[in-house]
């Protein structure tokens, strides 16, 4: 009996613990030299390209809607260029980067990768994606209809490693019906934080009539943006712009700015201008479609990305009005963010065809009619106009296009891609906020903890 039990226990333990071991692949290889290869293969685009058959693989993350739209666009491309076949692969965001890491270890990355601002530096540093400038110069990739500001976000260390698929910008969503009921005019894009506070207080005064619990749902992203803005308004960047793993400010200056921000956030939550952090967290886990603004329990929702407006509108069954984020002064800290990129992997056998596909993805109006601007507002002026005219009046698509169009000229410069430690640092500053708001820690002490941990994260991410 005793022996039997011991054996079973040992077996159970061994088997179960085996599941804990992270099975990171330890395959090691040196990526081939990318620059030498591309310059040799770049040809000119003579209009009727590619007599030889090329089979390309393409991978992206996203929702079912995106999969359907992208597949339709690929079909349009393949009909026009029968010699190039595109085999699609797609997953959700979470699994995407794990999958890509495994593929890169076995040197089996798809030819065309959808990429994100968050990871593009890492992939560039590891020579996993190629520089597309040679293809732009030879005319394979046509950017003549795209203002430089729209694709410059894809430049890492003087290489164009991804072509921006769409423009996004953070927005404040406003429930216009509720504002009307409360007799408050819709704010201008130039509104300041003082005006924002005033509007919130006015809404709260009519809380019971409107049936709201808080004035502003305030998504998790709101604090991310405020953090960046707080430094931008003082003429600094949150992260060092030289690409190193460090902040763009020294500890004392940063302390002042962050402590100020923490106090403001705490005050807003205590006055019910914004929802408690617990509710924000929950909303973050459940997804924006189940947020309070959708249920009519707040009148404002700060810092949703402009491309999320459609999902929220569909969920709520009514259109929201988009305005810019408030800042200290009337100068906007808002910036235009590349929603995602298409990059070409360094192990691609057909880099030129892949580059050509990306060019078509950007410029081909028929393809973009299938893509429906779901990845953000297209960067090509011609495509954007063609799409805008195809939208119905009063549709949210049109409102989003108009909003991004309105922001583009007044937008601030975007920072260079974030350092590797960014993901960990975001968690740290959200925890800092919770320590102050929920646990009553002093902002100064919370900052010290945050700073010390951030330094470790930078060190480990180098």
């Amino acid at each position, binding site marked *: *009996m005793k022996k039997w039990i*011991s054996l079973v226990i040992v077996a159970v*333990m061994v088997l179960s*613990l085996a599941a804990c*071991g992270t099975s990171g692949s*330890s395959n090691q290889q040196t990526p081939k030299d990318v620059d030498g290869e591309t310059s040799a293969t770049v040809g000119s685009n003579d209009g009727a390209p590619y007599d030889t058959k090329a089979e390309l693989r393409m991978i992206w993350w996203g929702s079912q809607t995106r999969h359907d739209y992208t597949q339709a666009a690929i079909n349009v491309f393949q009909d026009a260029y029968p010699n190039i076949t595109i085999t699609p692969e797609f997953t959700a965001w979470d699994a995407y980067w794990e999958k890509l890491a495994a593929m890169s270890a076995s040197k089996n990355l798809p030819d065309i990768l959808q990429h994100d601002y968050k990871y593009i530096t890492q992939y560039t540093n590891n020579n996993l994606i190629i520089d597309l400038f040679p293809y732009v110069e030879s005319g394979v990739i046509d950017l003549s209809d795209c203002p430089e500001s729209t694709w410059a976000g894809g430049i890492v260390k003087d290489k164009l490693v991804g072509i921006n698929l769409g423009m996004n910008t953070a927005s404040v969503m406003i429930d216009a019906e509720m504002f009307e009921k409360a007799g408050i005019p819709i704010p201008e894009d130039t509104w300041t934080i003082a005006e924002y506070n005033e509007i919130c207080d006015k809404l709260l005064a009519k809380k019971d009539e409107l049936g709201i619990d808080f004035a502003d749902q305030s998504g998790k992203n709101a604090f991310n943006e405020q953090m960046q803005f707080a430094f931008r308004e003082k003429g600094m960047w949150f992260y060092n712009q030289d690409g190193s793993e460090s902040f763009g400010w020294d500890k004392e200056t940063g302390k002042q700015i962050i402590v100020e921000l923490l106090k403001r956030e705490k005050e807003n939550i205590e006055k019910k201008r914004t929802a408690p952090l617990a509710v924000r967290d*929950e909303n973050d886990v459940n997804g924006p479609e189940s947020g309070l603004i959708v249920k009519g329990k707040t009148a404002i929702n700060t810092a949703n990305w402009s491309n999320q407006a459609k999902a929220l509108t569909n969920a709520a069954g009514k259109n929201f009005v988009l305005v810019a984020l408030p800042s200290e002064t009337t100068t906007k800290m808002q910036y235009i963010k590349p929603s995602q990129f298409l990059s070409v992997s360094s192990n691609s056998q057909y880099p030129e065809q892949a580059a050509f596909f990306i060019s078509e993805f950007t410029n081909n109006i028929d393809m973009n009619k299938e893509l429906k601007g779901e990845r953000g507002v297209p960067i090509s002026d011609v495509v954007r106009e063609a799409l805008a005219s195809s939208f119905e009046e009063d549709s949210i698509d049109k409102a989003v296009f108009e909003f991004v169009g309105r922001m583009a000229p007044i937008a601030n410069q975007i920072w260079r891609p974030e350092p*590797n430690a960014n993901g*960990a640092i975001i968690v740290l500053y959200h925890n800092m906020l919770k320590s102050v708001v929920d*646990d009553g820690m002093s902002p100064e002490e919370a900052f010290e903890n945050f700073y010390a941990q951030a330094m470790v994260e930078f060190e480990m991410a180098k």
Partner: protein
Amino acid sequence: MRYKRSESSVLKNKKQCSSSLRRRIYNENIVGYVFIAPFIIGFLVFTVYPLLSSLYLSFTKFSGLGTPEWIGLLNYKRMFFLDPRYIKSLKVTFVYVFIYVPLRLTFALIVAMLFKAGGRIIAAYRTMFYLPSVIGGSVAVAVVWRQLWGYDGVINRFLISIGLMEEQFSFIGSKETALMTIIILAIWQFGSPMLVFIAGLKDIPMSLYEAATVDGANGWKKFWKITMPCLTPIIFFNLVNQLISGFMAFTQAFIITRGGPNDATMLYVVYLYEKSFTTFQMGYGSAMAWVLIVIVSILTAILFSTQNKWVYYGNE
């Protein structure tokens, strides 16, 4: 004649030799090895190799891309001296394990006592009580749980309607209550220890109870003097099992709270996952996995060393 004999002896030798070879080939052991080879190969490739490579990775900085960079014991040092979030996740995990294991076992034992008796209806009941364990580990139940305990959830509405609460409150978003909701979900899945308890209860000889009844013992006394001592091996088995699975709890905390708020439900494996797969510090994640193995091994060893004191095996 002599020559012949020697030749035949050579032949004989040869025959012996080949038959011994044949015997060796057809030896039961060899056959056995061949039959278990698929498992052994799979075990080596899918378990031993990843296990060893994770041991190697735990001494490196590795983002999943490129080459791991050897950094010696830095990951281990970071865990205990430079990472307050890690220490917090250790604390949360210990609280979780030390609350949930005793409660789950107590529940399982109580229900097992009720279901000890046979009968068709009891069997159907037993199945119903086991159901949460089958579905309880799943993502779907965790999602439902999140909705139940959320700011706008059923529990909220119910407590407000009966007047126990005045305002809506996010149970899963508040640090005082978040871990509790996850522990309740874990306790609810007491099915598998319950089944083991039922089997153990049925193993206790009726004659003991009959003798006790004759001697005039009441139910309470019978439970403490007969049921509990006879059940100790089963309790021990369940205890070790649940302890190990408690340290490895992941799904519920990951789905319901993602470790939040402010790391209040940051169970060990959730933090390990966050470090390995959202910030891509695979080396650090591997180091954490190995420390977890050591912690669980030590606790298991301690439990084993105490079993002489309280576990009663009938044959002693």
